[in-house]
C-alpha cells in the first residue's frame, strides 16, 4: 500500500536522511520510531509532498506520488499533524467537518451525510461533548483528539500520524492506540511515529526504527525493539525486560535497581513481586 524506495533528502547541504526504504502493507499499523531530530517528521513531509525529496520514490496505492494531484492525494491519505493552532475560533465540529473536504462536490456541497460522518468520528473518539466548543481554546491533548477525529472523517486508505499521543494523558494515549488498531483492522494502512518504544512494541504490527542517517531496523516489534537496536539509537540507556509475555522497555538504571531489589528481597526471604518473572532478554 505504501512503499518508500531509496529516499534522499537534505536541507541545503545538510543531509537529513539517505537511502530510506521500507514498505507498509494494507491494513498494517506501522510505527516509525527514532530519536529526536532523526528526520521522522521530514520523512512524513516528503511522503505527503510538502517537501520535495531529491532522489528515490514514494508509491501509494500503486501510484507514484509525483503523479498524484493534491485533490486525489487527499482522498487517499490523511495526516494528523503534531501541533497546530488556527487563528480563528472554529468549532470542533467544523474542524472535523473540514476532513470531509476532499469528498465534497457542488456549490454548498456539505451534505447531511458529511455532517453525520463528522459527528460519528467524534463519537468514535468519545469527544462528542466537545463538538460545540472553539477548537483553538482546547488543550493540546484535546486538539490532538480532534485532529484524529478529522482524519477518521476524511475516510482515506492511508493515514499518517505525527506523534499522535505526544500531548495526551496516559488513558487517552492507550485509547488513541486502540483506535488506531481498530482503524487498521478495517483495512486502513497507518504510519504513526512515536517516541515511546513500549507503545510501538505493544500496539504496532510493524516497526521501522530510524536513526540520524537512515533506517536501523524494520520488522515485527519483537524482532525490532531489542536492546541491541535501542543501544544503537540511544547509546545504552535502555533495557528490555519481559513481564509475563509482554515486553517492557525501561531505563537501564531502573531495570538494574529492580534486579538488585529483587535479589535483596529474595535473600531476605520476602515475597517476590506479583508480576512474576522479570528476566533479561
Amino acid at each position, binding site marked *: 500500500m505504501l512503499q518508500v524506495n531509496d529516499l534522499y533528502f537534505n536541507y541545503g547541504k545538510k543531509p537529513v536522511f539517505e537511502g530510506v526504504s521500507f514498505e507498509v502493507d494494507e491494513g498494517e499499523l506501522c510505527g516509525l520510531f527514532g530519536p529526536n531530530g532523526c528526520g521522522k517528521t521530514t520523512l512524513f*513531509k516528503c511522503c*505527503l*509532498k*510538502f517537501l520535495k525529496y531529491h532522489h528515490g520514490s514514494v508509491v501509494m496505492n500503486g501510484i507514484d506520488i509525483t503523479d498524484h494531484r*493534491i*485533490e*486525489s*492525494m*487527499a*482522498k487517499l*491519505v*490523511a*495526516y494528523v*499533524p503534531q501541533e*497546530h*493552532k*488556527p*487563528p*480563528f*475560533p*472554529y*468549532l470542533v*465540529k*467544523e*474542524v472535523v467537518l*473540514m*476532513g470531509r*473536504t*476532499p469528498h*465534497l462536490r457542488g*456549490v*454548498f456541497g*456539505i451534505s447531511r451525510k458529511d*455532517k*453525520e460522518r463528522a*459527528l*460519528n468520528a467524534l*463519537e468514535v473518539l468519545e469527544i*462528542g461533548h466537545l*463538538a*460545540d466548543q*472553539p477548537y*483553538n*481554546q482546547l488543550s493540546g491533548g484535546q486538539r490532538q483528539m480532534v485532529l484524529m477525529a478529522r482524519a477518521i472523517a*476524511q475516510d482515506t486508505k492511508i493515514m499518517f500520524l505525527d506523534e499522535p499521543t505526544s500531548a495526551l494523558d496516559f488513558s487517552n494515549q492507550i485509547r488513541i492506540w486502540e483506535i488506531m488498531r481498530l482503524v487498521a483492522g478495517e483495512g486502513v494502512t497507518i504510519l504513526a511515529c512515536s517516541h515511546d518504544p513500549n507503545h510501538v512494541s505493544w500496539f504496532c504490527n510493524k516497526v521501522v526504527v530510524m536513526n540520524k542517517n537512515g533506517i536501523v531496523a524494520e520488522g515485527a516489534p519483537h524482532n525490532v525493539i531489542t536492546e541491541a537496536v535501542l543501544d544503537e539509537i540511544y547509546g545504552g540507556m535502555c533495557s528490555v525486560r519481559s513481564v509475563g509475555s509482554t515486553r517492557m522497555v525501561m531505563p537501564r538504571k531502573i531495570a538494574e535497581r529492580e534486579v538488585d531489589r529483587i535479589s535483596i528481597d529474595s535473600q531476605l526471604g520476602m515475597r517476590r513481586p506479583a508480576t512474576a518473572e522479570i528476566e533479561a532478554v
Partner: protein
Amino acid sequence: MERLGYERIEGFSEEKKVGVLISLLALMVLTATIAISRGVYEISFVDVYTIILAHLSPIVDVSSVNRLHNTIVWELRVPRILLAVTVGVALATSGAVFQGCFRNPLVEPYILGVSSGAAFGASLGIVYPHIFHSVQISAFIFGSVAVALAYILARTRDETPIVTLILAGIIIGSIFAALVSIMKYISNDTALREIVFWLMGGFYYASWKDVALVSPIVMSSFLVLWFFGWKLNILSMGDEEARTLGVNPEKYKFLLISIATLITSLAVSTVGIIAWVGLMMPHAARMILGPDHRFVIPAAAMLGGTYLIVCDTMARTLTSAEIPVGIITSILGAPYLFYLLRTRGRAIFG
C-alpha cells in the same frame, strides 16, 4: 447511524445563520432607504420616493417632478449611496478574504500596499493631469502594480510564505508612501490640497458612471469569493493542512488574493483610501456568526455596505461642508476595535 442529539441543533444553527444573513440584508436596504431621504437640502420622504419611482417605473413621467429635486435625488444621492454600498462590500469582502488567507485577524485589505500604490497613482494623476488623464485609472494601475510587486518579491521556490508576503507588502507600501511624499513636496498648493483630500477618501464625485463601472465587477467578484468560502476555511488552517485536505494553497491563495486585490484597488481608485472598514467588518461578522467564512463573507459584505452608508450620510449631513468619510470611519472604528480587544480579545485574537 442513530440520530445524535446535536445533529438537529447543528441543522438549526445553520438555519439561524441564514436568518441572520437575511436580516443583515434587510438592515442594509433599510439604511439605504432612510439615507436617501436625508441630506443638507431638505426634500420630503414622499417626494424622494416619487422621484425614484418615476425613474424605476415606466408609467410615471420623469419630467413631471421638480427638476432640482430630481437632480439632487437621482443624480447625486442615489448613485452616491449605491457607490457607498459597493465600496463597503468590496472592502469588507476583501478584508475577510485577506484575513483568511493570511491566517491573521489583524490583516486589512491594504496590507499588500494597494493603498500606497493607488495613492501614488492618484497623486501622479493630480500633479501631472496632462500625462495621466484619469486619476482613477492611474490609481488603479499603481495600486495593482504595488501588490504584484509585493507578490513577486515574496515568491521564492514556487512558494509564497505568509510572513515574507506581509513584509514585502510593508516594504512596497513604504516605498510608495515615500513616493507620495515626494509628489506632495513638488506639487503646488491646489494639487497638494487635492492629494490630501484624495487620501482621506470620500464619495463627493460619485456618479452613475462610477456605479456602472464598479458595481458589476465588485458584485460578481463578491459572488466568486463567497463561492470559495469553505476553501477559505481550509486555507486559514495553514498551507500543510490545506494540502492534506486537498486544497492547493498556492493556487487558491493566488486566486483569492488576486480577486480581493482587484476589488480593493477598484474601490480605492474610485473613492480614495477609506480605512477600518476592511479590518472591522470581518471581525463584526465573526462575532455575530462565528468564523465559518461561508457566513463571514456575506455578513461582512452587508455590514460593510451598511457601515459606509451610515458614515457617508454623516459625512454629508453633519455640517454644511463635507467631512471626508475616511475620518468618520476611523473615528467610529477605532473605539469599536478597542472595545473588541477588551471584551472578546481572547476569543478573537487568540
